[in-house]
């Protein structure tokens, strides 16, 4: 059941919704595998797409065996699976983020966009605690932070779950594009120094894909 539909009866996000979201993320990581890898080849080591695809395929397999009706528990499973299967920089970073977000949701089978935002903020915090990246370092953070800010803004403006996730996706993509002129200060790309300028960051790109998937689920019904 999509967020819109859920929204009608009080904007409820449930386990099915989270599973649908993750399924769409997994699908787009598979579709964008080469693209993300090419981006990583330019300023990294040509494996980001492979890593993300490997991770989310493992997640889908894992979730198949998880009965839970608890969205928080599901996100926690997603996180620990990413930590266990991805490796590289993206694994622990995305893994900690999803796991922390899941923990923050706590239990309860239903939640709304504002509670989901709180959870995602907790996830972002965990990621920054581990990776110590700030906006402008040319990383995942450059897409993640503006996405949540836009989410907050649209939420305050009383926007619908659909419009909230649309704003978030737009902001994530903008953040993604904003990494192009930046010189990387974190991760492998930072080794290139000035030569990292002019390339879009792979991690910021995968983050934009994650928010795009969320929008598609929220938009559907």
């Amino acid at each position: 059941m999509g967020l819109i539909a859920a929204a009608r009866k009080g904007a409820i996000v449930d386990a099915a919704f989270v599973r649908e979201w993750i399924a769409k993320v997994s699908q787009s990581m598979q579709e964008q595998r080469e693209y993300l890898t090419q981006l990583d080849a330019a300023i990294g080591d040509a494996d980001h797409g492979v890593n993300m695809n490997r991770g989310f395929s493992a997640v889908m397999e894992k979730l198949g065996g998880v009965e839970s009706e608890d969205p928080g528990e599901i996100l926690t499973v997603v996180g620990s699976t990413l930590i266990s299967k991805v490796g590289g920089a993206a694994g622990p970073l995305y893994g900690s983020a999803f796991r922390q977000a899941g923990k923050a949701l706590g239990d309860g089978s239903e939640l709304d966009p504002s509670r989901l935002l709180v959870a995602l903020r907790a996830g972002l915090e965990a990621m920054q605690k581990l990776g110590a990246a700030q906006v402008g370092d040319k990383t995942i953070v450059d897409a993640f932070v503006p996405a949540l800010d836009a989410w907050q803004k649209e939420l305050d403006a009383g926007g619908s779950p659909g419009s909230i996730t649309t704003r978030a996706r737009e902001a994530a993509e903008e953040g993604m594009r904003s990494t192009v002129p930046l010189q990387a200060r974190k991760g492998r790309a930072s080794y290139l120094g000035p030569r990292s300028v002019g390339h879009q960051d792979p991690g910021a790109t995968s983050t934009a894909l994650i928010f795009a998937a969320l929008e598609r689920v929220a938009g559907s019904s």
Partner: protein
Amino acid sequence: MKKLINEPDRVVKDALEGVAAAHPELRVDVENQVVYRADSPVSGKVALVSGGGAGHEPLHAGFVGPGMLDAACPGEVFTSPVPDQMLAATKAVEGGAGVVHIVKNYTGDVMNFQLAAEMAADDGAKVESVLVNDDVAVEDSLYTAGRRGTGATLCIEKIAGALAERGGDLGSVASVARKVNERSRSFGIALTACTTPSAGTPTFDLPDDEIELGIGIHGEPGRKRVKITSAAELTKIAAQAIFDDYPFDKGDKALVMVNGMGGTPLIELYVVFNEVAKILAERGAEVERALVGDYVTSLDMAGCSITLCKLDQELTELWDAPVKTPALRWGS
């Protein structure tokens, strides 16, 4: 892409099965991707665990054995291993004297080892982490992830492994490892990019007459691209980059490692070694120990890295101590 493999996704596991078949003196957990010395855990001995992305062979699995590592955790090609591997390895080799994690300074390696160390600590294991960051091509500053760990990793694993074998305690094994890191510097040169099995195309394009200076070991481009020139000139550039950060002068004794990146023939590495020896001689420094060959590689990349480690009597003795691994073996 032409490679002697089956499927790209199977490369690491297929190779690990090959390692198991070729080296009965090792115990290989193919499923979880951990290579152990067969007699681990060695009770009372400080255990050494290292790991990192695959594609750098013989690093690290080729350095598992008496006098060096107790376990190695290869990740996928150029992708740091996951915490589960290091956690399993740490538990399996823990002989009661604690475990040293030797971690090359890459964001992914550092974070995955950190998560593993935290989990191991929760389970009550004593873990000391040693960071390797010898690559002078990267300025260590707020604006980078810090220097990369490259050739010095071998020196650290060999020397710390020797001390552990001799019965050194956790603190002293970790500190001799850090001492080697502080006294080692490396610089790498790529004549070609490399091709990862999963990507299938070279990690970067390099014209027929250009090379990359200051490359790492993951197929990433270097700091600077220049026209190819003589081995003498290139060696000067690499040596100078090292000396600018950490000079070797009159009376200094060097462990000189000229390391092939994987696609460069040994005859060229000896040509480069000759140039390094000449440069050190000019400065009055001595080639105390030498290692020439492919040890810390980057798949099929052509090129080499030069590592200089400043030896003292302690380090020289530990370097000379017996070691028995697939890739480094002497005195036994």
